[in-house]
């Protein structure tokens, strides 16, 4: 149990800091809202396209996010394969190539059917 004590302490400090600073900020900080502050990105550039009804992002972001998840998650299989590349040999290589071909076919479909176009 002693082994974990520093971790718990650190975690406790971190949490306390978050809570305290949020409360303190809302109590102490000045509140002057303007248009720029309410925007999604406070860099001054308007998001395209605009959120519908103020605040909600358009569906296109979700679409891209979904595509990202699908292709991103495949790396899960690449890492263990890479770690044991030697032991798995040709079999592993062929298997991984086939796997990547399949993923690229999905990518090709996405691309040809306009999933990657913003408008």
């Amino acid at each position, binding site marked *: *149990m002693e082994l*974990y004590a520093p971790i718990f302490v650190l975690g406790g400090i971190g949490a306390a800091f978050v809570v305290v600073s949020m409360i303190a900020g809302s109590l102490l900080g000045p509140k002057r809202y303007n248009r720029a502050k309410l925007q999604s990105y406070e860099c001054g550039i308007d998001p395209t396209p605009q959120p519908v009804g103020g605040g909600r992002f358009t*569906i296109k972001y*979700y679409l891209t996010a*979904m595509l990202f*998840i*699908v292709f*991103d*998650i*495949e790396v*899960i*299989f690449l890492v*263990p394969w890479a770690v044991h590349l030697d032991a798995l040999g040709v079999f592993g290589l062929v298997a991984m190539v086939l796997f990547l071909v399949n993923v690229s076919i999905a990518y090709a479909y996405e691309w040809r059917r306009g999933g990657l176009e913003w408008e």
Partner: protein
Amino acid sequence: MDPMNYIVLAAIVFTIGAVGVLVRRNAIIVFMCVELMLNACNLAFVSFARMHGNIEGQVIAFFVMVVAAAEVVVGLAIIMQVFRTRRSASVDDANLLRH
């Protein structure tokens, strides 16, 4: 530390997810609760893998992550489509089919 505690934690997380599915109306949140349940399963798998000293549980956890991602994509697509039709993501609004 008794590794069984992780299993208990997994069970608790799983229960939280299950309860969330029952009490939340927003389809996205219902769905997130399902993902929570899957993650609880993953926690249980890796804990058991540790306890048994074999690797199967970890391998399963990897696969579960991929499956969960695929499920996210399919699920979000469906929920999004319904939202566009009904302008509502509440699961309770979709009840034309009943009795």
